[in-house]
């Protein structure tokens, strides 16, 4: 029962991902320092989402996991988003 199903990710790929992540970090910081008003947070969060996606799919090997696990992970994020949105049905209309 060895782990022979697990995919090995090459060092090179990992470095590449890190570079993209650092680049995205750099963009967030520069974007938020020029004032975009309400957009700032949206942009920052979108970039954070992209970064999270990269970490999840590559560093955490999700890309190579079973479809089931990928669906479950997505489900957790969707659930949290739903809870957030529903809570704001209260706060946004008070």
């Amino acid at each position, binding site marked *: 029962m060895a782990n022979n199903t697990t995919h090995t990710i090459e060092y090179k790929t990992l470095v590449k991902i890190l570079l993209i992540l650092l680049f995205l970090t750099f963009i967030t910081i520069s974007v938020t320092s020029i004032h975009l008003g309400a957009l700032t947070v949206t942009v920052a969060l979108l970039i954070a989402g992209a970064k999270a996606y990269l970490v999840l799919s590559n560093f955490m090997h999700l890309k190579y996991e079973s479809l*089931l696990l990928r669906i479950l992970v997505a489900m957790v994020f969707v659930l949290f988003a739903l809870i957030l949105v529903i809570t704001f*049905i209260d706060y946004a209309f008070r």
Partner: protein
Amino acid sequence: MSNTTEKIEYVSYLDHQGKYKGIMSWLMATDHKRIGLLYMYAIITFFFIGVLLGLMMKLELLAPGETIMTAKMYNSVFTLHGILMIFMVVIPGLSAVFGNFFLPILIGAKDVAFPKLNRFSWWIFIVGSIMAVLSQLLKDGPPDTGWTFYAPYSTTTNSNVIMATAAAFVLGFSSILTGLNFIVTIHQMRAPGMKFFHMPLFPWALYATAWIQLLATPVIGITLLMLIAERAFQIGFFDPALGGDPLLFQHLFWIYSHPAVYVMMLPAMGVITEIIPTFCQRQIYGYKAVAISSLAIAAVGFLVWGHHMYTSGMSDQARWFFSLLTFIVAVPSAIKVFNWITTMYKGSIDVQPPFLYALAFIFLFIIGGTTGLLLGSVATNVQVHDTAFVVAHFHYIIFGGMGFAFFAAIHYWFPKMYGRMYDIKLANISLVIKFIGFNLLYFPQFIIGVQGMPRRYFDYPEQFQPAQVISSVGGFILAFGLFLMVYNLVKAAKSGAVAPANPWKGSTLEWQIPSPPSLENFDEAPIIKVNPYDYK
């Protein structure tokens, strides 16, 4: 797996000798069946303390004014009663006791996926329970917030709230680990050839339950931590005097605690779904509908928490949204009820105690559930929110439902767990007494609730007294019935007649193995049926 499959001599899990002897062989057990029993003994102990507290409240409420305790004491009694019953009895209840015992057997596995983690869950369950008891004894006096810990009262009262919430936190951790264990078990440990839709329906219910435990419990965890931080450091999360928002606490609390009521209910429904086909000798009607409705309840159940907050000052949009979803979540429950009853159609019905308990369950659950509809409708909720009506609703659904299902389960599986049989006649008598006592105890509360009697009232205006007296009398009838049942079961466990391996002619896997099962459940590979309820 190198050992030869030489036929192993049968030794039941109760007699099996492992590394540890005596009491340690229990405390250190990793066998899912022993852990199930450990949970059962612990939970029944807490349950009795809880029942005692409930009866004390009923004595106090016999007459207006102070009868046997002060207002302060009453407040801590219902708080402890709620904490004990919710966090230490019904949330672990069915899933940790019968889930642990029968989930692996029903899916043809030797144990759960992580037996040591399972043992660890029980230990921290005990640690959490000890903390809950300590919160009663420490210097500042027992907590008096109600089990809901609503801020800002809970952030300002000077009783042991920190200890009580920390206890709930630890108990939640135990619940998470059990859920995690079950999900992995169901995914990875099913016997070869058993697909998801070949599983019996109790595992299905446990699967849905486990997801709730896993995903909802962390939210209460963090909420309680914030409450503790707020008390310790005067951080203003929830206390308006410090800049916080008390409604936010309610949101966070119910984001967990509404799904938690389905943690109590789904396994109960699962048990009933096992019992009815067995005693009708007829396959369950609408297998897929019942399986999927469990998942549907779990999923939609996450999104309706606001129905506890209709009058809190939420936005009007949120009020109708939550009301709509609350009504929708009732439909899968209705489907289950219809399927159970249709299963009885043209069956060959053997009226034995577990089946009678199942019938009582259905009756009480319909009352509890449909009064839930009255609470879910915004207009009527305004009238009955926070009154005795709510108390009656959840007692009907929690012990009418979960409680009677627990009794049904214990009467159904008792011969398997202990290899002995109880006195059937006495079991039936105690059921009838409990059923009568139960309805006397809680039905009057619906009526005074509608008339406006608020809950958590130590004292009450005189016009409510007759109903309170009937209710108190019912409480004692119920307790007497409970006593008869326990007497019957304890006697049977010690000296009951030896039970056959399959007394009820069940078709699921647990009935294929000897009673009580051996350590690894299946000494021979089990035969997996495509339809777990195949009675031909």
